[in-house]
């Protein structure tokens, strides 16, 4: 879905970042334009999740160098919530449980907060209920999940569906989905991936952080990046993911050396 004059959503240049005093990201550059699907792969500890969290604004991830502009704005000048309101979404690898808060209450609060910040109409509880039920159909989610506490006691697959439901409600310009495929059985993977595909337009973009090529059979990437040691060491198209699946990551090290 790459358009010729597609607008640049994210422009990251030489990003370095520390977690607990240890430098994890050692100079990452990435450009994402509207309509694109990117995949970031790489071995455990290569910095994939750190990259996603640093962009989303986790306070424990200290940006030490480089720049990131999102839709023309300086991303690192904004706190996490402003990044979300501006249209950056992070689908969590491990979504947080919030006991005591009904999922419906949380979803509506998030939706209305973001709508309000974008100068759009907020929905009252009844309107929202209709709207969220409609969106849940995208993910074949049981409406019973509205009444339960946020993510509490959800299976791994249910948590991931709830993440994509939030993406469907908040309509981000750019979504980073951090290992959304982990913990999903094959049916759930198909449903979740189908939901993401339906949300993709020429105006938005998605970056899939994943270990496995499997997800990329369902959501076909335009670019595949391999991260290692806090850098992007190789970029290719979807064929690269297939190659990684059969050869692993070791050959890249040798190539780099």
């Amino acid at each position, binding site marked *: 879905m790459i358009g010729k004059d597609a607008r640049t959503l994210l422009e990251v240049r030489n990003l370095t970042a520390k977690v607990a005093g240890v430098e994890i990201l050692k100079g990452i550059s990435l450009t994402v334009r509207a309509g694109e699907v990117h995949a970031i792969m790489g071995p455990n500890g290569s910095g994939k999740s750190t990259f996603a969290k640093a962009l989303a604004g986790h*306070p424990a991830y200290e940006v030490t160098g480089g720049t990131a502009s999102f839709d023309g704005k300086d991303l690192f000048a904004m706190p*996490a919530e402003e990044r979300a309101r501006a249209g950056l979404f992070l689908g969590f690898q491990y979504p*947080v449980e*919030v006991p*005591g808060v009904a999922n419906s209450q949380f979803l509506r609060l*998030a939706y209305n907060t*973001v709508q309000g910040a974008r100068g759009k109409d907020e929905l009252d509880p009844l309107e929202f209920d209709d709207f969220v039920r409609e969106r849940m159909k995208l993910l074949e989610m049981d409406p019973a999940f509205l009444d339960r506490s946020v993510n509490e006691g959800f299976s791994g697959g249910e948590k991931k569906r709830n993440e994509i439901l939030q993406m469907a409600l908040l309509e981000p310009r750019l979504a980073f989905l951090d290992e959304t495929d982990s913990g999903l059985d094959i049916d759930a993977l198909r449903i979740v991936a189908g939901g993401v595909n339906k949300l993709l337009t020429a105006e938005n973009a998605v970056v899939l952080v994943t270990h496995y090529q499997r997800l990329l059979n369902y959501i076909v990437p335009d670019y595949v990046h391999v991260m290692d040691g806090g850098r992007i060491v190789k970029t290719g198209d979807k064929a690269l993911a297939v190659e990684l699946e059969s050869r692993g990551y070791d050959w890249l090290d040798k190539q780099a050396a």
Partner: protein
Amino acid sequence: MSTTTTAFLEGLLAGHSAAPAGPLGWLNALRGEALERANALTLPTTREEDWRFTDLSALYKLAFRPAVAAALPTLATIESFAVPEVAARLVFVDGKFAPRLSSGGSTAGIEVRDLASALASDDGFLRGRLAQLADYRDDAFRAINAACLADGAVVRARRNAAADGPVQLLFLSTQSEVATHPRVLIVAEEGSDLTVIEEYAGLADGPYCVNGVTEVAVGTAARVCHVRVQREAAGAFHVATTAVRVERDAAYASVSVALGARISRHNLNVVQAGEGVTVNLDGLALIHERQLADTHSFIDHAQPHGTSRQLHKCIVGGQAHAVFNGRILVRAGAQLTNSAQQSRNLLLSRRAHVDTKPQLEIFADDVKCAHGATIGQLEADEMFYLRTRGLSESAARNLLTYGFAAEIVDHIPIASVAASLRRAVMEQTQAELEPAA
């Protein structure tokens, strides 16, 4: 004893002479003995281990008197405390039963009566049951309560009876400088099923003192669900004991929520008196400003095959101070006891303070006992999650604080009570939520 303390004690014990001796010899004897104990016992101070963190000296400087007859609150006022699900509601105003504000009453197998009239027509049921579970010989406040024993509530579920709905006991304080001594007796006979909501609330502006005692006898294979809500006025002092005895194969579940009062202390003592007993205790103290809320619980596993689960939470803001002492005793014969206790505490400000103490005493060798205590602030990852959904830092904090409290409220099986408490929690935590449908 200092003269100021004497004035305090005399003020409280004026409740004894305010209710003159009646025709029941055993009751007069009980009240007389309790009066002697009240005069002999010293009022607790922070020098005692059991009161180390709860300083009542501000209370002892005050002088209280028994309530005088006054205009009752309007029905409209009472309606704000209404629980539509209830089968019966007894309202007490400044300790006195208010029949005009009460509704429902005894139905087949479930007797709900005010204590004064139950005593007046007692056929022997109350003798041998009243003041048997909450010992007044070892505690000054319980002794004062027993010495002043005159009014309160009696709820009795007869053998195998199941109530149509919960029973609500509402104790409203409307007068300042008044001390009341509510007394509640709940008897669930063999195989019965009963839910009781015990609520304390205040409409008075100045200081007042509520010194309550509630006794709950849960018979063989009976089930009692006990919801206790303390939302006294800001100037109130609230001291209370709930004493529970649970017989074989019976279950007692309690959800206790403390929101109000300047200083509150709740002793919750549960004895597993038979085999195979299940006890669930959930507690929440949500306090701010200069409030102090103290819960001392004691679960006595006296028999084998008992289960107890306890979750106590404190959310403390401002310069408030929460205290939790959770004692669990597993006696030598109480093999195969399974007990789990959690104390979780959230501090919302630098000057907020929590003292929490699990106290396990285990004398049986084949038991499973788990306990844990956490004190802290909100988790950074939880905050981050909500902020990535667009919530501001303060909105995220308020929402998480609300959820921390609501997890306890969710254990209340009466929808309107849970909803009302969720609203109260929302207000106090300033969570920007609509109540869940």
